[in-house]
């Protein structure tokens, strides 16, 4: 469309009192009308409400608007909504611009109303300046292959695989160990039903093996992932032999691993009978404990709820550079422990405590805890343990338990019982340490290959921790099970099914369209230095015949390449220099 006069409509949102309570909205509306190319302006209590959207559409028609600006909150949550409103009004949605006068204005200047109003005007002025330069864009459409790669053959991975296969999608299930089952394989019974792990694991494994849509590849790892949503090209490595597959979606179910305390922490590895809950589980299952112990002491939060990820840990790590980040975190945490609550340890301890009590009713089982975090109906399980006369001792950080050799050659645990204000000396035969679930080292490689960021707790990061718990920032890649944080079996199963559902949406629709916000190379200017290929975290650039090319589907529009390019041969569509410079210039000129 070359080139009708820009006619901009500006819609300014009160967001209840979020904005209206600070910024003088009517004043801003009045001001907007004075700006070049602005043909219309109005305010709405909630522009995002159906009424607000309706009045945008109406105004576009009535006032022949060909640009729309909404001054409200953040594009992160609301841009898609307003864009679709534009579409419905027959306007290409790349002709929409947003000014954030809430997060960037009313919220941060709540006590400076006048200045806030001035700033709101500035932001609107800048948005208008850019809007003038906006151009319609077409969005490329992608084919989505209806096959999926599931990484990890634990309970989450198998569940995801089965869920997809049952819907007729081809699934490649990749497990690095020689057999399926993951962490659960190492468990004896599962709380709270106390059913035998085997009784439910074996049938699942059988179902996977029997399913004609699932190709299971054990002892297999990923050696390379190329491509993008709908068209991932994955190279697998099965004991040295390579295998290439093409899939439309990827579900990461790499799970987590149990933290092993460093030698000497609570005398672990010093005294013989000090084990982790997982080791105790195995001892019980294999009947390794014959002689009824007089006492078993369990210590909670060993290596968890300790320290914190300090800002310096994260300083200077671009989200994309997950490898170095996790490496650093792992190193720091090995000694210091992990800051988060692993949430399954209390139940694991109680489960093992009950198993000990059932086997040796005379044995005293004492659990040293900070908080008993048996959430949901698990509370009843905690009560059951108490009724079986398991003792729970609350200790406080200031006085951590100490383990010493007792005169009789056994161990003795000194614990401070905060709730009676008394010291206890507990001679015992076994000390069991409850350790958290922590990220796999392999996660580093995975994260790097899949280009998913890692969050500060070291686990793979969701697209939005609240609203998109199984999506990642990479289209077509989803998270299942403990890959994104500690989960027990039911929670893993739920997240696996959720991830499968999300992946199925893409594959069932067979195609999707992607953002037009990508880099475009001007081949005449490009002299093939390759800096863009180097800098790109998403592998969206490649050199061919001395020229750089962009894979639109991979490009996240971060602009790193454009900034790096010595010949300024790269343009970011929808973020052109003209647009940005106009915006900056408007920002620097005083309110008119």
């Amino acid at each position, binding site marked *: 469309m070359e080139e009708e006069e820009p006619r901009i409509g500006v819609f300014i949102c009160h967001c209840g009192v979020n904005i209206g309570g600070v910024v003088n909205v009517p004043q801003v509306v009045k001001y907007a009308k004075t700006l070049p190319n602005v043909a219309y302006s109005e305010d709405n209590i909630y522009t995002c409400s159906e009424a607000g*959207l309706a009045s945008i559409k109406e105004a576009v028609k009535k006032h022949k608007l060909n640009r729309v600006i909404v001054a409200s909150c953040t594009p992160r949550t609301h841009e*898609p909504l307003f864009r679709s409103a534009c579409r419905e009004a027959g306007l290409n949605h790349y002709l929409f611009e947003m000014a954030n006068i809430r997060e960037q204005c009313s919220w941060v200047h709540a006590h400076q109303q006048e200045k806030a109003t001035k700033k709101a005007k500035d932001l609107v002025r800048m948005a208008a300046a850019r809007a003038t330069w906006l151009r319609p864009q077409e969005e490329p459409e992608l084919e989505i292959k209806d096959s999926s790669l599931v990484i990890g053959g634990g309970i989450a991975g198998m569940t995801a695989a089965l869920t997809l296969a049952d819907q007729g999608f081809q699934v490649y299930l990749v497990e690095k160990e020689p057999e399926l089952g993951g962490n659960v394989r190492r468990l004896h019974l599962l709380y709270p039903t106390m059913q035998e792990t085997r009784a439910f694991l074996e049938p699942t494994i059988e179902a996977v093996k029997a399913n004609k849509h699932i190709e299971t590849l054990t002892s297999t790892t990923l050696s390379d992932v190329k491509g993008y949503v709908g068209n991932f090209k994955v190279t697998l490595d099965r004991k040295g032999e390579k295998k290439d597959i093409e899939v439309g979606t990827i579900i990461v179910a790499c799970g987590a691993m149990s933290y092993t305390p460093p030698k000497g922490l609570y005398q672990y590895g010093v005294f013989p009978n000090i084990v982790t809950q997982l080791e105790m589980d195995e001892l019980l299952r294999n009947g390794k404990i014959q002689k009824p112990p007089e006492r078993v002491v369990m210590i909670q939060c060993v290596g968890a709820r300790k320290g914190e990820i300090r800002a310096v840990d994260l300083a200077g790590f671009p989200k994309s550079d997950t490898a170095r980040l996790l490496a650093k975190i792992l190193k720091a945490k090995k000694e210091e422990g992990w*800051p988060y609550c692993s949430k399954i340890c209390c139940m694991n301890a109680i489960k093992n405590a009950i198993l000990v009590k059932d086997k040796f009713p005379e044995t005293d089982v004492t659990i040293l805890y900070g908080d008993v975090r048996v959430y949901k109906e698990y*509370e009843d399980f905690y009560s059951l343990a108490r009724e079986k006369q398991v003792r729970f001792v609350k200790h406080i950080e200031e006085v951590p338990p100490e383990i010493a050799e007792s005169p009789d050659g056994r161990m003795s645990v000194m614990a401070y019982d905060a709730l009676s204000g008394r010291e206890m000396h507990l001679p015992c035969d076994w000390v069991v340490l409850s350790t958290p679930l922590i990220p796999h080292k392999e996660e580093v490689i995975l994260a790097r290959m899949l280009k998913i960021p890692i969050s500060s707790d070291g686990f793979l990061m969701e697209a939005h*921790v609240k609203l998109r718990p199984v999506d990642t920032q990479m289209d077509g890649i989803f998270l299942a099970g403990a890959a994104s944080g500690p989960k027990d079996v039911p929670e893993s199963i739920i997240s696996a099914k959720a991830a499968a559902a999300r992946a199925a949406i893409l594959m069932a*629709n067979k195609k999707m369209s992607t953002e037009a916000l990508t880099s475009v190379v001007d081949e005449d200017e490009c002299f093939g230095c390759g800096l863009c290929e180097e800098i790109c975290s998403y592998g969206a650039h490649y050199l061919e015949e001395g020229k750089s090319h962009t894979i639109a589907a991979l490009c996240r529009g971060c602009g790193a390449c454009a900034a790096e390019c010595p010949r300024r041969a790269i343009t970011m569509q929808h973020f052109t220099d003209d647009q940005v410079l106009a915006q900056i210039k408007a920002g620097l000129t005083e309110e008119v």
Partner: protein
Amino acid sequence: MAEKSVLVVGGGISGIQASLDLATRGYKVYLVEKSPSIGGRMAQLDKTFPTMDCSMCILAPKMIDCSHHHNVQLLTYSEVKGIKGSPGSFVVTVLRKPRYVDETKCTGCGTCADHCPVEVPNEFDEQLGMRKAIYMPFPQAVPRAVTIDKVNCIDCGLCQKMCQSGAVDLKMEAKEVELNVGAIIVSIGFDLFDPTQIPTYGYGRYKNVVTALELERLLCASGPTGGHLIRPSDGKIPRKIAFIQCVGSRDRRFGTTYCSSICCKYSVKDAVLIKEHEPSTTVSIYYIDLRAFGKGFQEFVNRAKSEYGVRFIRSSPGEIKEDPATKSLTVWYEDTVAGRIENQEFDLVVLCPALVPRTDAKELAKVLGASVDAYGFFKAANILTNPVDTTVPGIFACGYCLGPKTGDIPDSIMQGSATAARVAEVLERV
């Protein structure tokens, strides 16, 4: 066609997620909601941890997606009355209660409400704010149409006169519709335990003892106080605030022996929000076990302590007494770690009530032939292996109606998506 369509009962966040996933996947979705608008509990919250996004701000787009999606049909102000058939081909009878307003005509301009002479407490604001007899529960309501609550309406007909688009229809009658669906998802959410059952806390008798949900409304910018946290008794800004955990949770007397899973977490969030509102406020949280499990929460608690100076006291207070003159509240508690029995005065006390099954959960379960568990929540076919299947094949459940096995919003969303997967599994099985 039935096998390609799904009924979702309950328009909260988990129901919305299930609907959108299924609709985008290509299924026809009927989303039935009892109240006049979808949105559920999440719509009532102020901000959400950890991003501190305003809850409504991140929910509203999803609500609107539902109303715009070509595969979603909203049946608000409606209830499921009967069901026949089997997985793949259920026939469901839905009662569409009369709204006395034509949704298709109403623009939600609100003129009718402006002129309506009847004012009653607004359920959406936990009775703290007022609404008219013809009303929209909250500004972002979906669908954007008003509803006449006939219980309080005095039939003055003013709304009808005022309405430009002739949407008001005082003669409207309830009607039943039959839907053919392949599968059903239940996501009716939770109610709050009634704190008057614990008289020593004085809820209902003492004005300044409120529930956490009431607090959310008091904090919320679009709430009855426009986001200004004030005492119900005198509108003063509370300087000393206490949170009391496990009001009805972990309690054998009422059969609610479970942990409600979310109270510790939202309390810490609210405490921090209050501190940000009014840094000078002292906030004390009385807990038995501080259950800050889940992504980022432990770290958040540490910050609440060190950065914001929120007080955490391991104690479940025995009783609350009101000073009849000042309406301030004396909380009797024992700091169990110090072993000291003390009492402290507060301007406002926030009770964190147990989350309990919807009052009509049993009834709906009966209609669907599904069983409920010991607490009255929908029973999972197998809490280990089939956590989102009900005891009836082809009927699934997500969100808090499954009981506290839902931690919080992300869990509800995951369950919503998980049920979508189960539906597809059943209907696509090849």
